[in-house]
């Protein structure tokens, strides 16, 4: 009976550990996969690791992560150590409550810490803005920057802030163990307090400081949530970069970088645990007055170090380490903040990344390339004041909204000669009728994507989104404008209607279908992985993205695209520059560069979205043939660049008045899921 129980216990422990470690194990295994599948093993290869080192996004964010972690750890270690000493010089009455207060930030949800820090910084920036304006107006000797933004500095401050409690937590027990008389003894023997600190306290609590620093460092490297809220728009840590990379699909590159991160943290933790175990042993021996047998090797080193030459050696080593630290931090700083720059915010997988390198080489301007999830998400980020982008790539309706709110800067078309190559169809757009703010980036349509392996019929109507035929297999786009828009179209109304009854009717259609369980979920970029894997049958999304899904679709999945007979939305995404953009000149260079025929061809090939550059659009089939040695499928080309008759069925969004926008928002929140 007993034996069986024990077996049962072991079995449960085994299961628990399997559950804990199997996912990580799989991740590590698949980081060595020769193919790009996350499910099928196709042989051993190190190519993903190799491509890691060529991936500029990864390398840059790695540099940022190291810089932030090193600096934050250093600052937090010093601050935390002194704080712990301060706490220990208080009376018991105060000390214990303060130590409890110290625990709270560690237990606190990261998201709360992150949001509150973000709020704090933005509030401070607002206050600073007022002060700097006043200060600059009363004197002219010193000009203070009036606009501050979230960035590297706030990121480091945030990391320092959440690291300090960990340092205190590790240093405090060492202080408790320390004989209180040691400091008195040192002062008695002629030390000032500071000398006593360096000569006696520091060596005694050093183990606690080191493990505090190690833990702070791993916490910094690991952190995603707090960084996400405090890094602003132009800075990105490794964790944030990985998150950005997984938005569309988990590529083996992500596996590789995650594996490396896991191993790095593991190594630090193992080192820390070994150290702690050794010290516990020493402490036990000390407590039992058992003579500690000196390790002859360590003793011989210690003796050598105690000689005058040894002391010189120690000082030299310490100096070298300090210089190395400063140099590392300096180099990383130079790497992450080398000027000049241009901050670009676009959508996920919406550029051929080699173009960024090309631009940087040609113009010597570094590009901070960030991505946002949707027009709405970007809009709220801009509104919160947390962004310092120069160039953004919003869609048409968002452009008119931004213009209306005075958030865009007029472009200097004199610096953008390539604008002349833009097809006339994409000039004089309703959102920018006088061509003052925009240079079109791509254009395309929205249509139904379905898996023909599951769906037998030819689909030609939005009705499949609302009836029960494919209940539980339909993905709804998580974007009120698009979702309600197609419902309006299906009902025969304009997508731009401002009639609340029509909008409500369209919404009821969705809400009703939702109540009946038609929708599997509300998605944005997750749609790629779901559709490619055949995990949903029907969705509607952008034509260009459909083509990239087809490229990656799993075996047995047969994706098709259709623009329903009721008509649909067609859109233009255009490059704009934000008001008060910190790098206006560089932004002009970037826009002109991207508007060129060569860039448009490269982008069109890479992201499958149609180019607004007239020559590029026309030449693309030839470009494709030259590149791949085969003819471009006519149908594919028409999906990319919808022909005139299809576009006639489609409508372009215009900016809705405020009441309608509020109604959209309220309805969308009501929908839930």
């Amino acid at each position, binding site marked *: 009976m007993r034996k069986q129980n024990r077996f049962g216990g072991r079995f449960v422990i085994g299961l628990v550990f399997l559950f804990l470690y199997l996912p990580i194990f799989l991740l590590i295994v698949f980081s060595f996969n020769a193919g790009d599948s996350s499910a099928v093993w196709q042989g051993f290869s190190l190519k993903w690791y190799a491509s890691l080192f060529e991936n500029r996004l990864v390398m840059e964010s790695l540099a940022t992560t190291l810089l932030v972690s090193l600096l934050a750890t250093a600052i937090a270690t010093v601050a935390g150590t002194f704080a712990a000493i301060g706490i220990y010089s208080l009376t018991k009455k105060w000390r214990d409550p303060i130590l409890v207060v110290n625990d709270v930030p560690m237990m606190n949800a990261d998201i709360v810490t992150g949001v509150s820090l973000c709020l704090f910084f933005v509030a401070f920036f607002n206050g600073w803005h007022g002060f700097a304006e006043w200060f600059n107006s009363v004197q002219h000797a010193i000009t203070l920057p009036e606009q501050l933004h979230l960035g590297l500095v706030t990121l480091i401050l945030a990391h320092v802030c959440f690291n300090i409690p960990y340092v205190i937590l590790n240093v405090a027990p060492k202080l408790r163990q320390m004989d209180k008389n040691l400091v008195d003894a040192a002062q008695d023997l002629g030390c000032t307090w500071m000398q006593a600190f360096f000569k006696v306290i520091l060596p*005694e609590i050093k183990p606690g400081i080191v493990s505090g620093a190690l833990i702070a460092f791993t916490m910094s490297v690991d952190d995603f949530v707090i960084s996400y809220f405090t890094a602003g728009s132009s800075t990105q840590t490794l964790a944030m970069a990985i998150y950005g990379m997984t938005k569309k699909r988990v590529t083996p590159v992500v596996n590789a970088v995650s594996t490396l991160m896991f191993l790095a943290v593991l190594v630090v933790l193992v080192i820390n645990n070994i150290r702690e175990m050794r010290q516990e042993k020493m402490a036990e021996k*000390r407590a039992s007055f058992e003579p500690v047998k000196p390790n002859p090797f360590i003793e011989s080193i210690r*003796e050598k170090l105690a000689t005058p030459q040894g002391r010189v050696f120690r000082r030299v080593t310490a100096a070298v380490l300090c210089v190395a630290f400063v140099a590392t931090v300096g180099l990383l700083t130079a790497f992450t903040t080398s000027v000049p720059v241009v901050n670009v915010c676009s959508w996920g997988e919406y550029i051929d990344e080699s173009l960024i390198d090309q631009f940087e080489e040609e113009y010597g301007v570094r590009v901070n390339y960030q991505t946002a999830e949707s027009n709405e998400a970007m809009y709220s980020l801009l509104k919160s004041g947390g962004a310092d982008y120069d160039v953004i790539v919003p869609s048409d309706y968002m452009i008119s909204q931004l213009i209306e709110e005075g958030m865009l800067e007029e472009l200097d078309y004199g610096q953008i000669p390539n604008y002349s190559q833009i097809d006339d169809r994409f000039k004089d757009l309703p959102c920018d009728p006088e061509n003052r703010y925009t240079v079109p980036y791509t254009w395309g349509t929205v249509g139904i994507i379905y898996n023909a392996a599951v769906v037998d019929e030819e689909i030609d109507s939005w009705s499949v989104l609302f009836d029960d035929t494919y209940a539980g297999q339909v993905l709804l786009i998580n974007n009120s404008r698009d979702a309600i828009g197609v419902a309006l179209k299906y009902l025969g109304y304009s997508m731009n209607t401002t009639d609340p009854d029509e909008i409500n009717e369209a919404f009821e259609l969705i809400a009703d279908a939702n109540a009946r369980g038609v929708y599997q979920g509300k998605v944005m970029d997750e749609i790629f992985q779901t559709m490619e894997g055949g995990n949903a049958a029907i969705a509607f999304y952008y034509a260009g993205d459909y083509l990239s899904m087809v490229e990656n679709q799993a075996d047995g999945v047969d994706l098709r695209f259709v623009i329903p007979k009721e008509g649909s939305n067609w859109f233009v995404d255009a490059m704009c520059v934000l008001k008060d953009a910190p790098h206006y000149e560089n932004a002009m260079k970037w826009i002109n560069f991207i508007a060129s025929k060569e860039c448009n061809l490269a982008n069109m090939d890479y992201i499958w979205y149609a180019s607004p550059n007239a020559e590029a659009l026309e030449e693309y089939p030839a470009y494709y043939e030259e590149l791949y040695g085969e003819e471009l499928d006519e149908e594919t080309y028409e999906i990319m660049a919808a022909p005139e008759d299809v576009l006639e069925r489609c409508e372009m969004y215009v900016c809705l008045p405020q009441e309608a926008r509020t109604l959209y928002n309220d309805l969308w929140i009501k929908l839930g899921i």
Partner: protein
Amino acid sequence: MSKELIRLSNCVMSYDDEIVLDHIDLSIQDKEFLTLLGPSGCGKTTTLRIIGGFLTPTSGDVLFDGHRINDVPPHKRMVNTVFQRYALFPHLNVFENVAFGLRMGQTVVEQEGGSEIRRKVKIPEAEIHQRVMEMLEIVNLRGFEKRPVTALSGGQQQRVAIARALVNRPKVLLLDEPLGALDMRLRKDMQQELKRIQQEMEITFIYVTHDQEEALAMSDTVVVMDGGRIQQVGSPEDIYNEPRNAFVADFIGESNIIDGVMRADCVVEIFNRRFQCLDKGFEKDEPVDVVIRPEDVDIVSEAEGQLKGTVTSVTFKGVHYDTIVDFYGFKWLIQTTDFCPEGSRIGIKIDPDGFHVMKKSQYSGMFGDYSSYSEEYDEINDPTLLDEEEEDAADEE
């Protein structure tokens, strides 16, 4: 020996509402061995820490060689301390522990334009080495200099602590219960050794202990403290033979303390009987406390006795028997080499010099009855109890 080195004048120490030192006046002579003796919480450690500079008195003055040093920090005082449980630096070996103070440099006083200028001067390595080795010689630790201090026994650590303090050639050495953590035998050895070192080096020792035997054995002067006040200052003999009040009488050695009345000079009445004594100068019929040391009592046959009682317990102590005798409901401790069986009736005789008459004080009636003999003994000999309380007091800083 007669020159005054340290003076505490009207020193008060209080935390919040609690008064730890209550107007202390104390004069400490150069080169003397002075012991602060008292139970836990009596203020002896606080007094020591005020002299060491770790505490500043709430009011009153601390004078060193005639200069006020209230605000001089510890590292600028010509005083060194041996701490409770040694406070050796665990990360340094024996040599480096002892050399610690020397490496901090030596204070040199220079006269410049009429004002004194003090500055720290580095001591050459060769001199440090020589002085440390000399000191290790004195404390019998030659050959241990490379050992980590964590690898030493308690007694050896104690010696390192003493060497570490003395190597700086302080004018005064403060010792805070230095032998508390040692076992009985080692303690006796170290007592002698400390006395020897003090005489050899000719410096002032201020020694804190709760152990009266230790105090009597080593000191030139004993200061008995209780409740933040000095109860008596004197040589060990004075303190033992002429205790000023019931507390001192009880704390120093064993005593039977009996309510009595002075009927005339040299005549004291206890248990309604008059006895010859040597004490004079009291009012007629003044109520007094009478101390009779257990060894000053002779046991005689019941018929010959000045007082008659019943033996209630006998404990063999080696040299003598601790005999508890009930006289009219009051239990006496008598130390005698004569064995009297439990339950036997006996008489006692006391010579006139066996009576010590004291004025009544706040301590009257609190001590002297041996009906609870064993408990009291335990309390005095329980060092752990004392340590904890001392630490709490230190925490209050």
